[in-house]
């Protein structure tokens, strides 16, 4: 029964998510782990986010310039940059980069903890392994992905400004003012960070679920890492559509 099995795996994922939420208690140890995880999956992801954002900004500007030139509206390319980044590109691409950079490491760490019986050992010492190993990673992702989206957008807009104003010769004031006019704080800017928090939580939950339930072998860890990246990326793309449909009219 492939269908029943699929439903059961969704159910297992949901129960795992519930257990993570239930295990999240603001103890001193939790905050210590949270700080470590923010550093490991947040601060250490900065270079890839910055470089990725800058190159997305550059190419998006070229694309928009080419498309808008047809209508003689090339000097309004920053409308496309602002709306495109905040509505779709910044949250989605940041989340995908985050999945590749941090999701894989979460799955591999938890998979190795499983393979080396550390998870069992924690349980034997009456320490909830979910509270100790999973909950801090989940909350660190929920907190840091919106902040990484801010970095991504900053670098993308700065690179886009360079490309548009310095290379393509669009007027500086025109660039900023058309962007300000087009991007609404409530309708465009805030949803980007709501999306980012959801994507961060999704990525961390999928990666830790897959890693936590990996086969306790070396091969199981590698399978778990692959599965974490594939499943989390697909879920992020699906949730992006659902969120776009609800957040934007």
């Amino acid at each position: 029964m492939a269908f029943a099995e699929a439903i059961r795996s969704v159910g297992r994922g949901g129960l795992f998510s519930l257990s993570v939420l239930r295990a999240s208690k603001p103890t001193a140890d939790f905050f210590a782990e949270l700080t470590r995880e923010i550093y490991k999956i947040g601060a250490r992801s900065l270079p890839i986010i910055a470089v990725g954002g800058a190159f997305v900004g550059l190419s998006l500007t070229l694309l928009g310039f080419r498309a808008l030139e047809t209508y003689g509206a090339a000097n309004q390319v920053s409308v496309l940059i602002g709306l495109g980044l905040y509505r779709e590109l910044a949250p989605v691409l940041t989340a995908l980069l985050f999945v590749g950079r941090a999701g894989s490491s979460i799955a591999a760490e938890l998979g190795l903890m499983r393979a080396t019986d550390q998870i069992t050992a924690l349980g034997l010492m009456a320490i909830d392994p979910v509270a100790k190993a999973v909950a801090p990673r989940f909350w660190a992702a929920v907190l840091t992905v919106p902040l990484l989206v801010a970095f991504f957008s900053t670098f993308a807009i700065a690179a886009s400004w360079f490309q548009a104003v310095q290379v393509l010769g669009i007027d500086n004031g025109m660039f900023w003012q058309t962007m300000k006019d087009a991007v609404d704080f409530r309708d465009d800017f805030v949803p980007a960070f709501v999306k980012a928090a959801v994507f961060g939580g999704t990525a961390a939950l999928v990666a830790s679920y897959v890693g936590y339930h990996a086969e306790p072998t070396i091969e199981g860890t590698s399978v778990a890492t692959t599965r974490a990246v594939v499943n989390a990326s697909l879920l992020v793309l699906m949730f992006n559509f659902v969120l776009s449909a609800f957040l934007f009219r």
Partner: protein
Amino acid sequence: MATRGPRLEFAVGAFLVLALGSLLVLAIASTNGEFGFSRDSYALDARFTQVGQLRPNAPVKIGGVTIGRVEKIDLDPVKFDSIVTLAIDSRFNEIPIDTSAGILTGGLLGESYVGLQPGGDMEVLAPGEEIAFTTPAVDLIQMVGKYMFSGGGDNPPPSSGETSSAPPATPAPEEGTTP
């Protein structure tokens, strides 16, 4: 195992400060800066026979300055007028009662907006009241079509890419649009 060295705390702190800083810069430099989640505004209604391309959230302007937004567009189920509800910024609460509203277009194919032309009456529109004088949206394509095909002008439709401004040498065709 809780190695909360000062370097780790510094790194996390720097990350958070930088991230929140760039968030702030982005919010100020790249959005329209309307941070309030419930803007102080009041509603005015206006009835139009034709709203054209007007959409919710379009600006409401007096003399080119935005003073509010279109909140919703509805249709009167009996008279088939469209009822446009405007959310006007509370600062502009002394709009005269004989103000007229029109649906205008910025540029040739630009965005539609509601333009208000204030009157001179001493009485002021109260929240929820209706603007009595309105002009519907002008459909440019329909106007061009009427001009071209209703025999309103003497000129026939241009025949073969002729762009000279000289008066047409060919006599005007009798009537009808058959080639």
